């Protein structure tokens, strides 16, 4: 059988037991379109170029591989932050654990509820940004998500949100397979901080579509952690208007397989997009950051900062691209991906790319892999800092450039405390 047919067959096998969630006109229409996109592409397969470094089988197979629950007494991240909580347990909204979904300057609705309407503002974004992000590279798991997502939140921000909205993903079933889809629309000049944390499910497929209108600001801080055996495929699709800001940071610790894709399109002049990630893996850990930033306007600035600390056979992947379209003059694009390999067993696979069709731009990219700096380690030890503590300090120092992308000091401290906690739990 030809590859295309095999793919088609695998895709049909995956969706055979799933029904498109019921809904009103708008939701049915966007879901049907998404399903057609999925069928045209087929789910990712091992020999797809875009999946060269990450095997997609466990993300696409019909049954989610089981993932043991991680029992930890440690408090959850962001506990000390004043925020509006929206809790999903294995992908199912938990109203008892969630706050009342009201916040000044913000409309928050569950997808499940909003989908029942016949007309909804989200129709212009849901699956729309995802569909735009399918070119030039297929992202079938995202189309799959747009078709089959059972719930999520639709957030429309008209002013400056007084506190962050915090999506908390609890994992309670060892075989859960969760599909969530969120849409965030920031109107002109609006501002929102979105937090996400938690293992979510044994297998988690999540799409976040974000429209940042002119002069609006979106901050996103995510902590994917805890359960060691969890799997996740996530996508962020963002479209940026003039003078808007998009800043996203992701911390990933543990997890047998994580693929985080981000597709950012800068369509308004003078926009700023920063996307950063810090990942720490020990043992069975495969972490893939796949980023695609498109500059399609004047004087936009983009930064990609990805750092991975790997040990005991952990694998890190980075596929990052900056595409500067014709006419996107004065683009300032920066991309760095680095790994700190704490032993000889770990691997970092990087594919940095620049594709530039404008002649007056400044773009740079770099990718490195290295070990702990022995001179720095000796220096710290000579001041009395024990080896383990000194090594941990150097790990934090390595991750700092990514972590410093978090503007809010309180949120940054929350992330740093996660990092130090993770390091402290590990032997030398």
């Amino acid at each position, binding site marked *: 059988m030809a590859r295309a047919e095999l793919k088609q067959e695998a895709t049909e096998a995956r969706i055979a037991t799933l029904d498109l969630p019921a809904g009103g006109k708008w939701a049915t229409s966007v879901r049907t379109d998404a399903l057609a996109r999925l069928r045209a592409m087929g789910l990712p397969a091992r020999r797809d170029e875009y999946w060269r470094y990450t095997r997609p089988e466990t993300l696409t197979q019909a049954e989610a591989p089981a993932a043991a629950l991680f029992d930890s007494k440690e408090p959850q991240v962001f506990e000390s932050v004043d925020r509006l909580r929206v809790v999903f347990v294995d992908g199912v909204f938990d109203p008892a654990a969630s706050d009342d979904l009201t916040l000044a300057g913000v409309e928050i609705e569950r997808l499940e509820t909003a989908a029942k309407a016949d007309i909804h503002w989200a129709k212009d974004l849901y699956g729309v940004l995802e569909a735009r992000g399918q070119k030039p590279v297929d992202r079938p798991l995202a189309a799959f998500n747009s078709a089959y997502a059972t719930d999520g939140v639709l957030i429309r921000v008209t002013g400056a949100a007084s506190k962050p909205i915090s999506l908390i993903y609890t994992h309670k079933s060892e075989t859960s397979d969760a599909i969530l889809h969120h849409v965030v629309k920031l109107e002109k000049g609006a501002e929102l901080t979105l937090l996400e944390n938690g293992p979510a499910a044994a297998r988690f497929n999540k799409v976040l579509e974000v429209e940042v209108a002119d002069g609006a600001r979106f901050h996103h801080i995510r902590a994917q952690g805890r359960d060691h055996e969890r799997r996740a495929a996530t996508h962020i699709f963002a479209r940026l208007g003039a003078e808007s800001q998009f800043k996203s940071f992701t911390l990933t610790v543990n997890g047998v397989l994580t693929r985080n894709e981000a597709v950012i399109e800068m369509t308004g002049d003078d926009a700023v997009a920063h996307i950063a990630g810090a990942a720490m893996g020990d043992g069975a850990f495969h972490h893939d950051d796949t980023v695609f930033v498109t500059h399609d306007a004047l004087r936009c600035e983009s930064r990609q900062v990805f750092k991975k600390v790997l040990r005991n056979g952990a694998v890190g992947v980075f596929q990052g691209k900056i595409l500067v379209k014709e006419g996107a003059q004065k683009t300032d694009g920066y991309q760095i991906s680095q790994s700190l390999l704490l032993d000889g067993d770990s691997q970092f696979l990087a594919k940095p790319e620049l594709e530039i069709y404008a002649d007056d731009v400044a773009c740079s990219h770099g990718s490195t892999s290295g070990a702990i*700096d*022995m*001179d*720095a380690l*000796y*220096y*710290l*030890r*000579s*001041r*009395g*800092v*024990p*080896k383990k*503590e*000194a090594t941990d*300090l*150097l790990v*934090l*120092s*390595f*991750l*700092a*450039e990514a972590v410093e992308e978090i503007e809010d000091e309180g949120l940054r401290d929350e992330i740093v405390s996660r990092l130090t906690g993770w390091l402290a739990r590990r032997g030398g």
Partner: protein
Amino acid sequence: MLEIKNLHVKLEAEDKAILKGVDLVIEPGTVHAIMGPNGSGKSTLSYVLSGRDGYAVTDGSATLEGEEILDMEPEERAAAGLFLAFQYPVEIPGVGNMTFLRTAVNAQRKARGQEEMSAADFLKVIREKAKTLQIDADMLKRPVNVGFSGGEKKRNEILQMAMLEPKMCILDETDSGLDVDAMKLVSDGVNALRDAGRSFLVITHYQRLLDHIKPDVVHIMADGRIIKSGGPELALEVEQNGYADLLAEAEAV
């Protein structure tokens, strides 16, 4: 304080002997200087004493207040009271200078079974000490040595020394890369720490530094050995005549 006996050291990677029988006794409260031509083993001596990797001790011993230090980890030597001011202080991006110092101070206190210093107490002490070394708040906040000038790096070394209050201080070419004013500042910092319970070993190429930090004993090192020891006048002799005569004299013996 520090007693080095018949110390033989080779470079692990190249199997090359660097120190060929160093003997040195430093009494409490004294300042010793080591001078010598390039490649004589001065810096190696400081690295071996502080526990840098890459050197193999093939013979001899070094004791700090009677305790053998050559078997200790670098952090244990530091907790025991040894301090090396580096010739080339290392830059550590992402670690704040203040965080670094507080971690070091408390790690040593912990190792010695003392209570950790509170953030408030630490801040008070460091501000005071930083002021005398003309280290401003910005330098304390910045990542360790990153973007520091040569002089700032050396002053930062002395600040660390002042905070850690070691018993045995080794200064490896602390004067290199310093202008006259910076040298005065650094020397004043060192002199302020001189007391009966603290000893210094000052490694330098130039007599100039010894005008500021007055040594009790001056040693001349050549080819991995101390070939001559004397009073401060020995440094002046080197400054005027170079090492040739001293080396010839040593050969003759």
